[in-house]
C-alpha cells in the first residue's frame, strides 16, 4: 500500500512538472519573441519610422509610413469583404442551421479555413490581378477578406449559440416574430463575443504575407489609389529581411515589433470585450 502511494506520488510529481514546463515554454516563447524584437528593432523605432517613407539604400533614417497606411487600407477592404459575409453566414448557421445544407456550409467553412493562404493569394491573382492588369490594394484586401470569412463565420455562430434558448423563448412568447427575436435579442446578447471574434480574425490576417505578395505586391512610395499596388507591414518585413543591408535588417526588426504589438493589442482588447460580456452572462 505504501509503495503504491509512493508510486502515485511520483507520477503526480512528474506529470505536474511536465505540464508546468510545457506552460512555461509556451509563455516563454512569447516573452522571448517580444524581448528579441525590442532588442533588435527597438533602436530603429522613432517618430520617423511612423511618419516617413523608406529611404534609398545607403541613406540612413526613413520609415515605413506607407506600409502602415497600406496595411490599414488592406484591413479596411478585408473587413468590408469578410465581416458582412462571415457575420450573416454565422447568423444563418446559428439560428437556422440544421440539416445537410448547414452541415455542408460548416464543413466548407472549416476546409476554407485550412486552405493555405498562398493558395487564396494565387486565386485572387488569377481572378482580379490578371484581368485588371496590375496589382492593387483592392486585390490584396479581397484576398485577406476571403481568409477572414470562415473565421468570422464560425466565431459568430459559436457566440450566438451561447445565447441561452430561454432568451429566444422569452422573446417569442411576447409575440415577437423570429427575425425580430434574432435582431433585437439574440444578436445584441451575443454582440460582444462576435465583436471580439471579428477583432481576432482581423488581427490574424494583419500578419498574412503570402497572399499579399501577388495581390497588393508592395510599393516603395505612397500608393496612388485603391487600384494601385501598396506597401504593407508583413511584405515590407519580408523584403527588408531578405535584403543584404544591415540598415534594412534593423528596419525589418522594428516593423516586426510594431506588427506584433498591434496584434497583441487587438488580442488584449478582444479579451477585455469578452470578459465584460461574460460578467453580464454570469449575472443572468
Amino acid at each position: 500500500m505504501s509503495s503504491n502511494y509512493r508510486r502515485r506520488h511520483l507520477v503526480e510529481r512528474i506529470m505536474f512538472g511536465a505540464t508546468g514546463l510545457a506552460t512555461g515554454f509556451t509563455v516563454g516563447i512569447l516573452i522571448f519573441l517580444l524581448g528579441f524584437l525590442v532588442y533588435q528593432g527597438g533602436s530603429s523605432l522613432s517618430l520617423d519610422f511612423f511618419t516617413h517613407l523608406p529611404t534609398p539604400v545607403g541613406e540612413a533614417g526613413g520609415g515605413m509610413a506607407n506600409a502602415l497606411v497600406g496595411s490599414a487600407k488592406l484591413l479596411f477592404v478585408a473587413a468590408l469583404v469578410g465581416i458582412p459575409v462571415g457575420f450573416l453566414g454565422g447568423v444563418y448557421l446559428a439560428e437556422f442551421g440544421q440539416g445537410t445544407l448547414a452541415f455542408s456550409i460548416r464543413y466548407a467553412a472549416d476546409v476554407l479555413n485550412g486552405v493555405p493562404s498562398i493558395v487564396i493569394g494565387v486565386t485572387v491573382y488569377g481572378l482580379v490581378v490578371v484581368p485588371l492588369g496590375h496589382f492593387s490594394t483592392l486585390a490584396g484586401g479581397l484576398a485577406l477578406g476571403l481568409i477572414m470569412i470562415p473565421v468570422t463565420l464560425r466565431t459568430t455562430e459559436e457566440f450566438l449559440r451561447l445565447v441561452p434558448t430561454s432568451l429566444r423563448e422569452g422573446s417569442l412568447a411576447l409575440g415577437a416574430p423570429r427575425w425580430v427575436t434574432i435582431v433585437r435579442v439574440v444578436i445584441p446578447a451575443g454582440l460582444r463575443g462576435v465583436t471580439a471574434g471579428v477583432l481576432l480574425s482581423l488581427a490574424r490576417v494583419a500578419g498574412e504575407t503570402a497572399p499579399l505578395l501577388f495581390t497588393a505586391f508592395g510599393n516603395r512610395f505612397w500608393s496612388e489609389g485603391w487600384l494601385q499596388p501598396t506597401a504593407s507591414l508583413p511584405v515590407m518585413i519580408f523584403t527588408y529581411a531578405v535584403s543584404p543591408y544591415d540598415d534594412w535588417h534593423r528596419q525589418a526588426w522594428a516593423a516586426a515589433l510594431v506588427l506584433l504589438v498591434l496584434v497583441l493589442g487587438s488580442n488584449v482588447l478582444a479579451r477585455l470585450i469578452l470578459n465584460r460580456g461574460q460578467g453580464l452572462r454570469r449575472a443572468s
Partner: protein
Amino acid sequence: MAAPAVQLDSAVKMAVRGLTVRYGDTPALHDVTMDVPERRVTALIGPSGCGKSTFLRCFNRMNDTIRGTRITGEVTLDDENIYGPDVDPVELRRRVGMVFQRSNPFPKSIFDNVAFGPRIHGLKDPVALREVVERSLQQAALWDEVEDRLDRSALDLSGGQQQRLCIARALAVEPDVILMDEPASALDPIATAKIEELIQELKETYTIVIVTHNMQQAARVSDFTGYFYLGRLIEFGATDRVFTNPTKQETEDYITGRFG
C-alpha cells in the same frame, strides 16, 4: 368531442379537445380534454416528465419552435381553434403570455425589458411607453422597488425581482391568458410568497394556467387542478375537491405523497 363533466363557475376561456403531442416518435401527451375557466387559476400538477409542461406550451404554440413536434386535436381560445390554418402563432402569443421556470430577463435595462413587447408591436410614443411600463410594473408589484432605477440592467435584480420583471414584461402586451411554468421553483420562500400573492391579484383580470411541482402551492393559489401522469390527464376538477376527495386512486397516491 364532448366537454368534460366538470362544474366551472365562470366562462370557458380556453378549451382542449383530444390533444395528443409527439416529439418525433416519443409520445408526450395522450388524448387530453379539459377546459380552462376565465379569470381563474388553473394548476397543472404531476410528477416530472408527466407532460404538464408540454401541455402548457400547447396553449401558446411554443411547441411549434421545437423540431419534430406533432400535435393533433384542438385547442380553442374564445372558441377559435388556435391550431387552425389561418392562425398566426405570433399574434396568438400576444394574447397568451408566458412566464418561464427560470427567469429570463433580456440583458437590457429594466425599462427596455418591459417596453420590449409594446415596442415590437408598434408602440413608439415615449409617453405612452412610460405609462405601459409603469402600469405593468405596478401590476407585477415591482414598481416601488425599481422606480428610481429603470435604466439599470435587469440582470442586477434579485432572482425574485427578475421573475416579477418577467411577469411585468408579459403583462405589458396585455394578454388575456398568462401561462406560468413553475414560476417560483427557483425562488426562496419569501420571493415565492410574493409571486403567489401576485397570482391572486392577477386572476381578477387574467386567466392563469400554472404548472407547479409544489402541491401546497397548487392548493394555495389555484381554483382548479389537473393531475397529469404519464402523458394523460388523470383527474381534473375544483382544487378543493381534487385535494380532499380525489376520485382516482393515482391522484390520491400522488397527493398523499405515496410516490412522485
